[in-house]
């Protein structure tokens, strides 16, 4: 049944719109701003350098001088978390880019390629799924050596098959959409339909997925750091911070708990953004 849609209400002003934001989106946007600032201009937020040691003040609990406490070398955890934002976000964004780029290429081939190509790519994806992603990362790191770039590649390649399947599904479903048939009925060529309808409509959800993927990638990357395969310490990347704090968990829990919470917060932020982006895109332009 068709619902009658009420005539559009008068557009609220920009500031009114901001105030009308759902609380979670508002919180996510605020967090994003803080993360972005920390990544681009850490010195502004940090209270000291990321490597500055204070051997007289090691494993100090959170206090007004050291908001997140200090580590075994007396480094200020808060400043290290701030300085680590760039690396962690970099890995997250980089891996998301790698992952989605691969996914778009493979997914498009699997959905639109000729029969042998689609079958081969489909098989490749199936194998990639069956192949443990962790092993893939282990091998990559063994071949390339641990570095930010390796981490980006390892995480990006590891998460690509899932997204590739998604892309394939999106393209297949867009290809079967009534508006594509309408375009055929209008006499448009295959290339034009692909360009105008199928690709834009199937790739558009990726914008939201991209945001989701950043958070997932950071969690993934931190897992690799835990296994000692991430960015070399004492670089303040969050996963590395967590790994370094592990040995002090019973005496200095903050070294583990706080970076973990920051990772969770970031994952939560990107997921929330992604969700809202998705629903905005689904609703269509207003």
């Amino acid at each position, binding site marked *: *049944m*068709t619902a009658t849609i009420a005539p559009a209400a008068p557009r609220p002003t920009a500031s009114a719109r901001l105030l009308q934001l759902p609380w979670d989106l508002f919180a996510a946007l605020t967090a994003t701003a803080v993360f972005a600032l920390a990544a681009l201009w850490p010195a502004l937020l940090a209270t000291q350098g990321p490597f500055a040691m204070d051997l007289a003040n090691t494993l100090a609990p959170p206090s007004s001088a050291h908001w997140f406490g200090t580590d075994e070398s007396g480094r200020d955890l808060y400043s290290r978390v701030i300085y680590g934002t760039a690396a962690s976000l970099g890995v997250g964004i980089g891996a998301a880019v790698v992952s989605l780029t691969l996914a778009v290429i493979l997914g498009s081939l699997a959905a639109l390629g000729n029969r042998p190509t689609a079958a081969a790519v489909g098989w490749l994806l199936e194998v990639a799924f069956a192949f443990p992603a962790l092993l893939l990362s282990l091998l990559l790191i063994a071949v390339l050596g641990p570095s930010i770039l390796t981490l980006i590649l390892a995480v990006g390649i590891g998460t690509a098959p899932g997204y590739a399947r998604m892309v394939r599904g999106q393209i297949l479903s867009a290809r079967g959409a009534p*508006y594509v048939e*309408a375009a055929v*009925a209008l006499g448009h060529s295959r290339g034009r339909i692909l360009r105008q309808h199928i690709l834009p409509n199937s790739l558009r959800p990726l914008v939201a997925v991209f945001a989701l993927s950043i958070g997932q990638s950071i969690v993934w990357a931190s897992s690799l750091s835990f296994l000692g395969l991430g960015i070399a310490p004492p670089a303040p990347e969050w996963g590395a911070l967590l790994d370094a704090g592990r040995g002090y968990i019973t005496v200095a829990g903050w070294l583990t708990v706080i970076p973990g919470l920051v990772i969770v917060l970031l994952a939560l932020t990107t997921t929330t953004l992604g969700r809202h982006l998705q629903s905005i895109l689904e609703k*269509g332009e207003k």
Partner: protein
Amino acid sequence: MSAITTDAAASDLAAEIDNLAGFRPRLRVRDLSVAFQTTGGLRPIVQDVSFDLYPGQCVAIVGESGSGKSVTARTVVGLTGRGARVSAGELSLHGRDVSGLSDRQWQGIRGKEVGFILQDALVSLDPLRPVGAEIAESLRLHGWGDAAARSTKVIELLTSVGVPKPELRARQRPDQLSGGLRQRALIASALALAPDVVIADEPTTALDVTVQAQVLELLEESKRRGASIILISHDLSVVAQLADHILVMKDGRVVEQGAAADLLAAPREAYTRALIAAVPSEDTRGGSLSPAGAALLEAAPPAREVHDEVVLSARDVVKHFRSSDGSVTTAVDSVSFDLHRGETLGIVGESGSGKSTTGRIALALEQADAGTVTLLGQPWSSLPEPRRRALRSRISVVSQDPLSSFDPRWNVERILVDALQRGVFPSASARAERIRELLDQVGLPHAVLRRFPLRLSGGQRQRIAIARALAEAPDIIVLDEAVSALDVTIQAQILDLLVVLQRQHGLSYLFISHDLGVIAHLSHRVLVMKDGVVVESGTPDDIFHRPQEPYTRELIASIPVFDPRPAQEQNA
């Protein structure tokens, strides 16, 4: 006008008399109002609705989508929904005030004292469970018997609603049953505990006409057995079959109510009259259905004689579909037809009859397994797609769901511009001029150009779809259930528009519909399809008055008799 007050006063008086006689209403609703909490504050949905429901009586609530009729019905059983504010002067069932019942208390009433039937059992029964389990659940919830007794009762109930082989059917899921059988099963589940009050919310919408007739018969029977029925429908012809008393709702208010026969024969309100007038039928052919349409029709060129020229011709078209288990079904079997210039060829049939497939083959969106289709005398179905493209501008399509046929990223302007060939409209200004012309033709303001289809009403969307179909001045438009999803007054406007456009441009329509009334109203010739085969074809006059085939006769017989003319005129 004081008619309503007088009427209400009269009915109050009647109620009092009934009370004195011990003939009390089973359900009494007074000044019922419902509002929903939205971000923009409370939004009233139902305002001041009052009615009584007596034993063995059927009260129908008629109105278009959004009129508040379903909300009214649900409020009566305490299921208004989240965020609703309900207020009522009185809401009583069997004389008991039910306005303040807790959810648990309601649970004891629902299903036992009040039965509820929704539209289309395919989605109104749990699609993952056998229908027998669904029916048994109605019994179980109210502690009826043990498991064994319940399964016996389920068979009994299915038998009573006329389901053959009930043991087998009870084990099947809705999707394994035909539309008629599953709708009967749904009714069986609602009537399992023989409730005194049955609420039927659009019980026949989306059903084929023959199934609709069966469902109405079942309701009729339950009414005869003393059940009181609240019938919710947008379809006056359905209401006319069953209702003793009719409420006409618009925008949450009752605009008119009264005894069914009186109201239909002598509607007092303009809105009611418009509703009645909007119902298409064989009798309305050549006339207008909507007030606006009347003016348009007058302004339009007169109906032309149907031209001899054949614009689209199908010969022995066959189409098979292979299903998952490897079996092959024949969707279209040896279908042949000719569509002449300026003609509307109606294809009517029930779901699964192959009419839509026929339409898609005519559009060359589906490749026929055998047979040929020619367009304007040229090969069409036999060509490869790239070579068809040149001819595509001659034939266009309007489908049931225009929204999904628009790219969701595009606004109206882009949709329409996209339909224009660069070769024909080379400059941007030419294209802009053309799309404004199209909007004028379909009666839409130019302001919609910037809007997105999602933000438009169903009628507006369908007009955009028609504008797009007209973009390159085609010879033929295939209309596949193009008005089925619309409210009756909107449907009337679109049908009027189609007639006007046909007269203006000499268009040929291949008009596909399950709705015999629409077909009868619009068509110059009619094909009746069943199981992929054309069982009969002819003029509407032949088909509706002198059906030759048994199936056609059955179909015609199923059409609800709806003649709003006063009874004595009818007799004359």
